[in-house]
């Protein structure tokens, strides 16, 4: 049971809002020592895994292009464009993006989205501009709330869309693991049974996005008529 010490460590670190890098180092050390690994073994295993996971950070390659385009006014242009659409509200825009992200991910097109390349330069400014167009100026807290929802729509669309595609990583992992345990399943079966949850996720999160519009409108009214 002692290897669980690392889990407690990381949970405590996040709860106390320690710097996560230090919490991770502490957790790795705690779990490793509890499992009778030597410090050198822990350091080597950690270095090996860090090296093997470099592909996770390749996405930062987009930053110079995005930065250059932002300097040339990309975010402002995205705002202008959406500001012209009369029917646009933050909630409806994010609902559309959620649907597009979910459908494209379910076709295996998971690369059509992501936070550095899509949410920060395009979706978040568009959502803010749509809210501003329908509700007028907003405070920084409300703006932050809308930006957080832009990132959430990207994540939820991706997570509950991708498993419908038969060749995605999680389907391959499930199939390989079950095959090792002597249970044969077809990828198509796995992806078909992901559809009910995908629909539920769209209904739940979509409803929340429409409620977001109502909350934003209520907030705007309260700002317009200060309490007596």
């Amino acid at each position, binding site marked *: 049971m002692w290897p669980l010490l690392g889990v407690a460590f990381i949970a405590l670190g996040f709860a106390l809002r320690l710097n*996560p890098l230090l919490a991770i180092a502490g957790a790795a050390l705690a779990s490793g020592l509890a499992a009778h690994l030597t410090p050198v073994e*822990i350091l080597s295993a950690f270095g090996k895994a860090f090296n093997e996971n470099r592909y996770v*950070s*390749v996405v*930062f390659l987009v930053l110079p292009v995005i*930065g250059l385009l932002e300097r040339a*006014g990309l975010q402002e242009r995205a705002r202008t464009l959406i500001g012209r659409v009369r029917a646009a509200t933050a909630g409806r825009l994010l609902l559309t993006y959620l649907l597009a992200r979910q459908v494209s991910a379910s076709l295996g097109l998971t690369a059509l989205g992501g*936070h550095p390349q899509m949410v920060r330069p395009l979706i978040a400014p568009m959502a803010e501009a749509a809210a501003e167009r329908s509700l007028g100026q907003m405070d920084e807290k409300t703006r932050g709330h809308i930006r957080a929802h832009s990132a*959430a729509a990207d994540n939820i669309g991706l997570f509950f869309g991708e498993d419908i595609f038969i060749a995605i990583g999680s389907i391959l992992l499930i199939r390989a693991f079950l095959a090792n345990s002597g249970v044969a399943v077809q990828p198509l079966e796995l992806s078909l049974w992901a559809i009910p949850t995908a629909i539920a996720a769209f209904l739940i999160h979509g409803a929340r996005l429409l409620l977001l519009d109502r909350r934003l409108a209520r907030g705007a009214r309260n700002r317009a008529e200060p309490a007596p």
Partner: protein
Amino acid sequence: MITLETVYVVAGIMFAAFAVLSAKDRTNARRFGNAAFWGLLAASFLFGSHIGDLANGVLVSGLILIGGCGFLGRGQSAEIDFAQRSASAARHGNRLFVPALIIPATALLGTLLLKNATVAGAALVDPKQVTVISLALGVVIALAVAVLWLRPRAVVPLQEGRRLIDAIGWAAVLPQMLASLGAIFALAGVGRAVGTLATQYIPLDQPLVVVAVYCVGMAAFTAVMGNAFAAFPVMTAAVGLPLIVQKFGGNPAIMASIGMLSGFCGTLVTPMAANFNIVPAALLDLDRNAVIRAQLPTATLLLPVNIILMSLLVFTFGAHR
């Protein structure tokens, strides 16, 4: 053949440039901290495959010390002001979207077309890494188009990239760090310990209780590990296969599919899934947990829906006896 290694060299050069520009930035009181941090990351990308596990471990310790002990700072950004950007946006119009959309379009087309492409009989790209390589290719094309069109000074894209990476700060290495912690957890047997706990202390003789334990366990264990892929083998070996499938005759495809999606509910609420939850918060200039707070209600509602769906479906369609 273009492999991941090629992409790593490009990324290494970019981080090395960030390090040099950081060192020269006199507006940042901690400029040498930034230079050392991005320099170490550059070294990891350029030389990581050749220096061995222990040296990589020492390198990572350096990143942890610099990032964890507050040696990173931010300079006065040379960002041009809103009025200038608006004027530029009006001048360039919708064509500004073209380079931005080249990146996902290339990633998409590359994934579809390059997988089996050959030059003189040899594979053009490593077929296992085709998505990551296509993304990098998209960046190179988009950058070339944007630079030829906008004609900035050569250093401008790198300065802008550095502005954005400094806004992310140490959170940039968090996804890789957490993946490494997952490897240590696996080595230390954390998964086995959790599986033992789940089966020893919870009454597992009711099919519906078992389904609930499996789904909640997937979500909780995913939240701890930051990754549903790490939780799935553990929970499925401990609860899913022996009880739902073998004891109660449930359908393994339904169990696995909805089980994995229950795990994704855990991904939505954990800072351990840094690339989905923490990095975007930094990119959007938000409180560290703001994205998690936006996702929490959806995850909280969707997990019980998953439990109900699995209860209804897994035994009804369980024709695998």
